[in-house]
């Protein structure tokens, strides 16, 4: 029932905004890396590797931000261990509990794929890394990669469900946030990978595919934004007033402009633009706008509900 709960805000602010952003990029990058491995060809190997190289470092930022946000940071482990009886603290019906475990387990997958990517790329030559790479190359490794992608999807999406499983106005009035954050995270991850592979000859072919994928992700995100706003009912005005409009403009600029630029790129069959040209500027503009949009979307959802 929209607007019929009389809550006080939890004051989840900048650390949580940062956490939601990086969790999305980490989970989404892993998923893109997996998709490229499963469905791509040999020319996509370099980009897939870079996606895994992005996933783990961005994931490392997440527990730091989460811990800093706690009132008692030194008790971060209470998310995992029940301090009262020494058993596990696990509640499948609490997204925050699931998220803490998901973050830990996803960390294992993301770390192994990171090591493997380091070895495959020849960045570091070390026996442990080569072991990780050969493990990942086998059939068991493929299953491992896919299971990791399931955790990656969860990490990118659950933050939206976490907000919804509350009694806060806006958050608890919609069921669209999990899907919306996931679509936005995938779009943001495609943008991050595109930025990381700019001007790389070995990623040229995959850049076109990533741009195609990002177009679909943006369309999905736009549809979910409409659903999100449509489900708010009586509290719609809470997210569509005052300063929040500026954030929505950034969200729209981070979806509609990249969509138009991607469409242009595909239509003109542009591949890697020459350094220093206008085309290169445009290739930088689209992913940067997407990332700003991803951040603004989370900001408007997090902050407007608590205002």
């Amino acid at each position, binding site marked *: 029932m929209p607007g019929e709960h009389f809550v006080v805000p939890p004051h989840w602010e900048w650390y949580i905004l940062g956490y939601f952003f990086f969790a999305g990029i980490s989970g989404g990058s892993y998923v893109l890396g997996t998709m490229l491995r499963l469905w791509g060809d040999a020319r996509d*190997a370099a980009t897939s590797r870079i996606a895994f190289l992005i996933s783990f470092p961005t994931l490392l930022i997440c527990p730091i931000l989460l811990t800093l946000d706690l009132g008692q940071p030194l008790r971060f482990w209470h998310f995992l261990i029940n301090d009262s009886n020494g058993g596990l603290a696990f509640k499948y019906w609490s997204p925050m509990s699931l998220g803490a475990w998901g973050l830990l387990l996803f960390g294992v997958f993301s770390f192994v794929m990171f090591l493997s990517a380091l070895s495959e790329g020849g960045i570091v030559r070390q026996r442990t890394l080569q072991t990780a790479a050969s493990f990942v190359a086998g059939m068991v490794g493929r299953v491992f990669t896919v299971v990791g992608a399931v955790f990656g999807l969860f990490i990118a999406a659950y933050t939206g469900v976490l907000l919804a499983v509350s009694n806060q106005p806006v958050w608890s009035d919609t069921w669209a946030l999990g899907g919306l954050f996931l679509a936005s995270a995938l779009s943001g991850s495609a943008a991050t990978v595109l930025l990381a592979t700019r001007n790389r000859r070995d990623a040229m072919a995959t850049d076109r595919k990533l741009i195609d994928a990002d177009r679909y992700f943006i369309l999905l995100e736009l549809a979910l934004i409409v659903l999100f706003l449509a489900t708010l009912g009586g509290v719609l005005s809470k997210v569509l007033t005052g300063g929040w409009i500026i954030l929505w403009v950034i969200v729209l600029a981070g979806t509609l402009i990249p969509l138009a630029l991607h469409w242009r790129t595909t239509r003109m069959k542009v591949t890697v633009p020459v350094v220093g040209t206008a085309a290169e500027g445009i290739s930088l503009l689209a992913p940067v706008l997407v990332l700003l949009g991803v951040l603004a979307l989370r900001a408007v959802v997090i902050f407007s509900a608590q205002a």
Partner: protein
Amino acid sequence: MCIRDRSMMSDVCKHCANASCLEVCPTNAIIRTEFDTVFIQQDVCNGCRDCISACPYGVIGFNSTSGTAQKCTFCYDRLQNNLKPACATACPTQSIKFGPLDELRQTAATRLATLQAQGVSQARIYGDKEYGGLHAFFLLTDKPEAYNLPSTQSAVLPSRNNVPGYLTATITTILAGVAGLVAFRRRGEPPAGQSS
């Protein structure tokens, strides 16, 4: 929502039978005591504030000194020593009553009948049905929303949004998977894993 000309506003913990805060608490810091009250263990709480976002009555606050969530304990320590909660003991007008729920419900029913006989047609007991029954209930003379209290219909636990939330995420996953398949599918080349 503003409160109109009312004589009371309740921001005390209701110690719900089905408590939203207890449901979402990821650390099990929030427990149900032997007195059927809801209690935040201060040595376990890590200050994540998930309970604050869940409480539909807005009664949990964050103590920036202790770094933990805090609310009315129903004087847990006093109850353990066979004493009444301090508020019920100190209240000079005896507006706050403490005792066995059945007895209090009977008292409330009598008061309600008196009020209704006096023409207060909107009078009602709040707390019988909401969240499985509250352990602090109130005699209202208007609908609950006028007192900043959720109505019976909207008094639903936060977990109501788990299934629809994850379902939307799952549908999005499927659609994104199809998008990835269309965009990344190999075009006559060996798979990515078989590169040099």
